């Protein structure tokens, strides 16, 4: 991680710095190419992939003998057993998880904004977010399974059970476990996005004003801050909705199995040895896309309806009470979410060093490093692949994002709302809906199962997160620092490198850590593009997750969780050390 910015910067500047005469127009000419290059690199595969999914859905896939357009795949799809139940489950879990995560976010801010405890809680959110979905899911499964830790803690003294109970919170028919897992993962994301949005709308001042009018904490937040901040978090909410409706890895671990939610069902068809099922799978991937569009449209409609109905309430003058109940409720809910997330990780750790651990016992009979010693070699290759792909995708994305942002500074034209929507595209289109088509194309190009293909596929998801994290600090850096450096006669590239990038070291490293965490967590792109030849910790963990050996699963899933956390620790520690004697750099760039 240490050399992240340095390497990129040299690559960048190598292009950006013309030999001899460093003049702005030449620098601008090279830089100007970066935004279109970025868009092409990351929109191209998505659009091509969508097309590559839609055509087979209508029977066209020459490689498998589909030469003519037909509706047969759709007929096949709708005749498939479990399709309707799977679609309903997807809609239900996705909408419910998003609604709960949003409600918790709103409750947390309404009850806590401006308090010291809440500010402290914010610091906990980033690491929670960094842990890959799959690691959280496996951790939750270790807690909530019939023979999981929570049951062990209350057995037999409370339950009287001698054997694990038959019923399970997980994998039950209503998708309870999946919904819970999504809430645990998506609430921190929405909370962090809301924090980012608040700065744009002067929330603190408006809140203070409303309270001076006699409004209680919660009513003031709901009536004044929420209407202002909601437009800022609308796209993140839609991204959560799209993700929750089409998630694969979490659904396989925590979701019901007969039938599963829609996305895992489609993946089953894709991986079926019977190649004719691919057409049906492609139609399913299109259906998944339609479901997401439908859900987003329904959500938008609900937004409009609520905004309309709540209008009289906004000005009815009701001040609300002290909000003490809401306060406790918020801490309780957030506490449970945080405890589940951290408790799950702890369960992974304990299992990975557990010796004998019979059912009702609350703690293993002995702790041993035997599992780690025996299976460490199993981890070596997935870890190496994860690191390589993650670092490469992050470096590439960082170079492109820095190029785009610098071009924005040079041309003094901030991108509009449309550009933001494009950036969100990979987060709004269900992965499975374009990865199938992308895989077909990569096979044609001979890029499936190659490093290049895999890094490119990860880039699609790393890039938007990196951009969203870095854009605000990059844009808001006071330009006069650079102006004064230029006035001192330094060349452009030196000013960029020694002033801007140095001042932005902290946000750049944090954005890189987030990008890396996103890459580490990618399951579906790795599975479909890596084609089994390139195995990362995520694909390895999921392959093992359904096996019996909890110790081994605990070890792999823990490694999966720890890798991004290490990246975060480095991103926080490095600037803190570098600027340890610079008080002005204390709160980031």
């Amino acid at each position, binding site marked *: 991680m240490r050399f992240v910015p340095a390497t990129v910067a040299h690559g960048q500047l190598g292009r950006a710095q013309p030999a001899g005469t460093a003049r702005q127009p030449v620098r601008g000419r090279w830089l100007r190419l970066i935004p279109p290059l970025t868009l092409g690199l990351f929109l191209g595969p998505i659009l091509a992939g969508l097309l590559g999914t839609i055509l087979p859905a209508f029977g066209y896939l020459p490689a498998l003998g589909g030469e003519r357009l037909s509706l047969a795949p759709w007929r096949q799809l709708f005749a498939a057993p479990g399709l309707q139940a799977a679609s309903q489950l997807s809609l239900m879990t996705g909408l419910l998880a998003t609604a709960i995560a949003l409600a918790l976010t709103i409750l947390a801010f309404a009850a806590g904004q401006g*308090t*010291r405890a809440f500010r402290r809680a914010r610091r906990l959110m980033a690491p929670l977010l960094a842990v890959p979905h799959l690691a959280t899911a496996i951790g939750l499964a270790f807690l909530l399974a019939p023979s999981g830790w929570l049951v062990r803690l209350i057995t037999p003294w409370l339950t009287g059970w001698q054997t694990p109970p038959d019923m399970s919170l997980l994998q039950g028919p209503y998708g309870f476990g999946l919904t819970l897992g999504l809430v645990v993962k998506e609430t921190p994301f929405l909370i962090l996005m809301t924090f980012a949005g608040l700065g744009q709308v*002067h929330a603190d*001042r*408006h809140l*203070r*004003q*409303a*309270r*001076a*009018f*006699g*409004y*209680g*904490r919660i009513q*003031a937040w709901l*009536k*004044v801050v929420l*209407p*202002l901040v909601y437009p800022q978090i609308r796209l993140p909410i839609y991204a959560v909705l799209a993700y929750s409706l089409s998630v694969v890895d979490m659904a396989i671990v925590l979701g019901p199995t007969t039938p599963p939610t829609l996305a895992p069902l489609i993946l089953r068809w894709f991986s079926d040895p019977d190649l004719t099922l691919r057409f049906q799978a492609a139609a399913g991937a299109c259906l998944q896309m339609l479901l997401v569009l439908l859900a987003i449209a329904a959500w938008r409609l609900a937004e409009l309806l609520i905004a309309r109905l709540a209008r009289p309430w*906004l*000005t*009815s*003058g*009701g*001040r609300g009470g*002290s909000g003490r109940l809401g306060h406790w409720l918020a801490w309780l809910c957030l506490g449970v979410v945080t405890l589940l997330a951290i408790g799950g990780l702890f369960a992974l750790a304990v299992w990975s060093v557990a010796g004998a651990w019979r059912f009702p016992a609350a703690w293993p009979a002995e702790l041993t490093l035997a599992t780690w010693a025996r299976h460490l070699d199993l981890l070596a290759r997935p870890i190496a692949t994860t690191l390589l792909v993650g670092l490469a995708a992050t470096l590439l994305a960082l170079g492109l994002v820095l190029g785009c942002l610098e071009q924005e500074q040079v041309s003094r034209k901030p991108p509009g709302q449309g550009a933001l929507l494009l950036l969100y595209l990979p987060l709004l289109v269900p992965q499975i809906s374009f990865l199938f088509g992308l895989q077909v194309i990569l096979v044609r190009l001979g890029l499936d199962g190659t490093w290049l293909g895999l890094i490119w596929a990860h880039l699609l998801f790393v890039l938007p997160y990196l951009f969203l994290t870095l854009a605000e600090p990059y844009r808001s850096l006071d330009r006069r620092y650079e102006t004064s450096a230029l006035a001192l006669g330094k060349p452009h590239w030196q000013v960029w490198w020694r002033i801007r990038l140095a001042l932005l070291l902290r946000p750049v490293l944090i954005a890189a850590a987030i990008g890396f965490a996103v890459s580490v967590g990618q399951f579906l792109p790795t599975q479909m593009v890596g084609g089994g030849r390139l195995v990362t910790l995520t694909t390895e963990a999921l392959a093992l997750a359904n096996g019996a050996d909890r110790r081994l699963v605990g070890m792999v899933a823990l490694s999966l969780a720890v890798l991004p956390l290490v990246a975060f620790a480095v991103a926080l520690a490095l600037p803190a050390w570098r600027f340890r004697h610079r008080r002005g750099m204390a709160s980031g760039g």
Partner: protein
Amino acid sequence: MASGPGAPGLELEHVTISIGGRRLIEDLTMAVAPGEIATIMGPSGSGKSSLLSFICGTLEPDFEALGLIRLAGVELGPCPPERRRVGILFQDDLLFPHLSVGENLEFALPASVRGRAARRAKVAAALAEADLVGFGGRDPASLSGGQRARVALMRTLLAEPRALLLDEPFAKLDVALRARIRRFVYVHAQAASLPTLLVTHDPEDARTTGGPVLELG
């Protein structure tokens, strides 16, 4: 909040505010009678705004504050901000951008004013008072600086405060407008018999109040 004995206005007793060990305000004691406008002057960073936040109950947790605030004889210290009924006007008018001008005013109106018609009538009266008849449906962003300042004051008064704090509310207005808005605010504060505390670094603001002026170091 039964009203106790003591003076009816706003009283500060031995108020000390510090941040990180640095004293901003040291042992300040003063009383502002109803209808009186007292001014605190001082350079930026002298703790003027922190004092107002302390009175409102919204002082950031990084600050340390000691001393008593009494309003109409009742101590404000234990009250949360929303129960203090202290109106405040900031340098920025802070009209809520998602509500219309009329809705902004209605927002501040207490719930005890019941019924659509009664609430609308109060809002219309406030608009008339601010010389903005017919502006109820307008977007606050479409108003001029002077109009916004007048709406902000009317909004604050509609919440029926028992004291008024002015945090450099005229600083962003241009010079010609400043005198008119200043007069508008002072006249209304005095008409409502509010104890009013003004912080500013413009001597002209202070000179025109006709009240006591206190200089901070």
